[in-house]
């Protein structure tokens, strides 16, 4: 597709389970970002990839959170042993050539 694609669009899981969120960036975009938006809050930066490397992981809230990117394209964000405070909308963005970041529609994660 032409835009950033995220899957699943919604995920409901029990506390303590692991979840994996996927992001397909715009083709050719070298930079990829993960953000999350908790209820009533702004977007919070999590991690930034340039190619397959992550020069900035400063926003990952704990070691339960990890992300990888392979082939300079698809990225997965993994949350282990989910907690209720992990409930949020997780947004992925991509960009290239000093252009603004383009966002996907996000994954709404609910932890029961």
């Amino acid at each position: 597709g032409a835009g950033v694609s995220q899957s699943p669009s919604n995920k409901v899981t029990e506390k303590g389970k692991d979840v994996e969120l996927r992001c397909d960036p715009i083709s050719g975009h070298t930079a990829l970002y993960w953000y999350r938006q908790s209820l009533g809050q702004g977007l919070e930066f999590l991690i930034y990839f340039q190619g397959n490397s992550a020069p900035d992981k400063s926003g990952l809230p704990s070691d339960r959170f990890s992300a990888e990117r392979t082939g300079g394209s698809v990225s997965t964000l993994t949350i282990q042993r989910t907690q209720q405070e992990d409930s949020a909308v997780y947004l992925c963005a991509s960009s290239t050539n000093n252009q603004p970041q383009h966002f996907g529609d996000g994954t709404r994660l609910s932890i029961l």
Partner: protein
Amino acid sequence: DQQVKQNSPSLSVQEGRISILNCDYTNSMFDYFLWYKKYPAEGPTFLISISSIKDKNEDGRFTVFLNKSAKHLSLHIVPSQPGDSAVYFCAASVGGSGNTGKLIFGQGTTLQVKP
């Protein structure tokens, strides 16, 4: 520590009038600023940006003003249309345009344009 602040959670204006959305920042290292618009259940959509070397950037009905000494920027929408009703986020970055690193977002302002 909220480095980018949008102090007005909501704004309501009449169709055809001007909408002014405000944003304040604390980090003097920010050199690139963006506005995004967000509809429910969709991702943010880029609207307009401004580099710190400028004090104004205009794109159609949208104009962004930057006052570096006051660490303040504003988005003007003229004339406002009902389709402009959405949440508007201000964002800032260090190091130029938005793809070189993370964006720091404000909390958002919900704009309602009444017909």
